[in-house]
């Protein structure tokens, strides 16, 4: 046990995800040895992010204003919504530069064993966005694990009667891998999602 402020800092750092007691101690002593200006910059950034960053009232993504940069961008296609679990998934899709529509962040995935049901996610808000008739396609980009698949299944069942095209991101083999190392589930999905290759002209 250290005295006063040092122990308080170690305790606070230890509450962060993925930071154990040893890591917390290492970070605390790194901060103690750092320049005052660096530590003050870190502290002010932490305070600023808590005070200024909020969740977009439309899509649920992190935003500096009431509506995020993507939702307020008139050049984005309002007829396509890509549904993701977390704000960090928006960044992952944006990196592809393939998608020019808008997003909806659910805030997680349905997981009964963890007590997370449909009412704990932003599904009502999604349905409200779909009711005005602007959206013609809903892309379900939840994680390719069981919770993500089940959430996508639930959403497809919910949105189907509205007459909106519901699509799911393809699953299959990772680029750069060897076929022999693929597991049965992934390879099975790759087979069921196979596509025709057009003959070169």
């Amino acid at each position, binding site marked *: 046990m250290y005295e006063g402020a040092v122990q308080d800092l170690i305790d606070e750092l230890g509450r962060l995800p993925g930071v154990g007691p040893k890591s917390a101690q290492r970070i605390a002593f790194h901060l103690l040895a750092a320049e005052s200006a660096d530590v003050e910059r870190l502290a002010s950034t932490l305070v600023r992010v808590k005070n200024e960053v909020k969740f977009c009232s439309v899509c649920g993504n992190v935003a500096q204003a009431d509506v995020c940069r993507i939702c307020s961008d008139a050049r984005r296609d309002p007829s396509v919504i890509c549904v993701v679990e977390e704000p960090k998934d928006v960044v992952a899709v944006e990196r592809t530069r393939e998608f020019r529509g808008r997003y909806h962040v659910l805030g997680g995935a349905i997981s*009964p064993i963890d*007590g997370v049901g449909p009412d704990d996610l932003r599904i009502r808000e999604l349905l409200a966005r779909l009711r005005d008739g602007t959206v013609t396609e809903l892309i379900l980009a939840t994680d390719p694990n*069981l919770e993500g698949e089940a959430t996508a*299944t*639930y959403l497809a069942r*919910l949105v189907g009667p509205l007459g909106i095209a519901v699509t799911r991101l393809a699953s299959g083999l990772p680029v750069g891998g060897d076929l022999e190392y693929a597991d049965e589930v992934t390879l099975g999905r790759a087979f069921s999602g196979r596509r025709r290759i057009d003959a070169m002209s």
Partner: protein
Amino acid sequence: MPLYRDEAVVLRVHKLGEADRIVTLLTRRHGRVRAVGKGVRRTTSRFGARLEPGSHIDVQLHSRLADGQAPPGGQRGLDLVTQTESIGAYGAELAGDYARWTAGSAICETAERLTEEGEPALRLYLLVVGALRALVAGEHDPGLVLDAFLLRSMSVAGWQPALQECALCSAPGPHAAFNVAAGGAVCESCRPSGSARPAAETVGLMLALLTADWASADASGPSARRAASGLVAAHLQWHLERGLRSLPLVDRGAPGLMETP
């Protein structure tokens, strides 16, 4: 046993660090085991898809305990998953059907709660595998499969509800009253106040589920199924002394978000 191999069902997964997962397994010979799957959340993982909840796998694990070594402080610690082969990807097959998937989640949570780490539970393991197979086969209503599993797993745990005789005096039934705290059906002279009075069809359905009389169970009506699932859930949670998180979320054909105003 630094390296050992077993068959297992994945009951639950937790995220760990950047790309790892802690998996809770119900194994055939070693009971409930918690292990780390290194890098299984990466898209390039060779066995990430096999370590999803509901997967039936042949797994090789590395234990940190040497042969005969007692776990320090009674804590067994986490083993390491080194290889897996798929026996049945039940979870992946269930994820395409919301009702069956929620029932499968409740089965996995119940199995986790009814077992102790490192204590073999072969009968429960076989029940879990059988229930997941039945859900995938889709021959019976998922709610019935779940209730049958809950009743039989309670029976394995020693908490089988009395259905044909009085739970308190063993007087032969059938009896009209049912009391969860007393342990099942109770006769008129033993009946504690506040006992439920389920319909005879409800108790008959519970007996059919307990004895694998699927012809009778499949022929039961919705009201009997609803009442039986309520009694089964109450009986289980009374004995567990805690609620199951997944049970209220099991999709038994209740109105979803679209039906609510």
